[in-house]
């Protein structure tokens, strides 16, 4: 499953790097603690969070995540958006709550292919 598939099925907004949506998604990680994501996340995952500042972009880049999904209507500040665009980090966004997004993403990834 690619990021594009997830965007399509969950009805997400794409804020940065729309041309990279072909990236393969390996799973998901949900937390608002940055080091928790670095410690437990794996490359290719989509990270569901309400943190929306520039350091989130650095975590996604370093951890090799497929995308960051900002939940609950959170929007990145200008610095985060600019950095994500230049570092190749895909920022996605939704008005749904983090729990609901994580649940929907989990079900989607668990679908037999």
């Amino acid at each position, binding site marked *: 499953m690619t990021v594009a598939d997830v965007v399509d099925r969950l009805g997400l907004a794409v804020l940065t790097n729309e041309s990279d949506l072909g990236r393969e998604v390996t799973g998901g990680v949900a937390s608002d*603690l940055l*080091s928790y994501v670095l410690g437990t996340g794996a490359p290719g995952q989509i990270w569901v*969070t309400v*943190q929306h500042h520039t350091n989130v972009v650095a975590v996604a*880049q*370093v*951890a090799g995540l497929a995308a960051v999904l900002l939940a609950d209507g959170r929007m990145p500040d200008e610095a985060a958006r600019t950095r994500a665009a230049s*570092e190749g980090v895909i920022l996605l966004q939704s008005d749904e709550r983090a729990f609901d997004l994580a649940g929907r993403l989990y079900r989607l990834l668990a679908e037999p292919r």
Partner: protein
Amino acid sequence: MTYEVRAGDIEHGGSVSARIKTDLIEAGVSPSVARRAGIVSFEAEMNLIVYSTAGGTIAVAVESEFIVIRVEDRGPGIEDIKLAMTPGYSTAPDWATDLGFGAGMGLFNMKRNADRFEIESRVGEGTRIACWIQKDDSAGRPLHKEAQ
């Protein structure tokens, strides 16, 4: 290559570690090894930003067998290293926890992603950390389940 990290410079937090990861991949280091070096660097960088009194340095050297990352600051020093290494333990101020720092996993993540980890600290003087990451990960070394 040695990078300066300024205390409190949250706005640029992660920019040094992002560059380290990119540079290592460009230098031919495997993405999984560069990722581990990136995580070690990120945690070091954030510790310098959030906790150090006057910032510090991160030095990266690519040697024949290892990537060596050395971190130094000039205080405040860690009173109880064993406690600071415990997952979940944090002394982060409120402004940092609001941003998602202070998970209490920083030093733990550094040790976990390194093949060899050394830390020494003196209260009032500073902290020095050195991490060695093996360049050849073809053996598929699993990460330590728990840093000792």
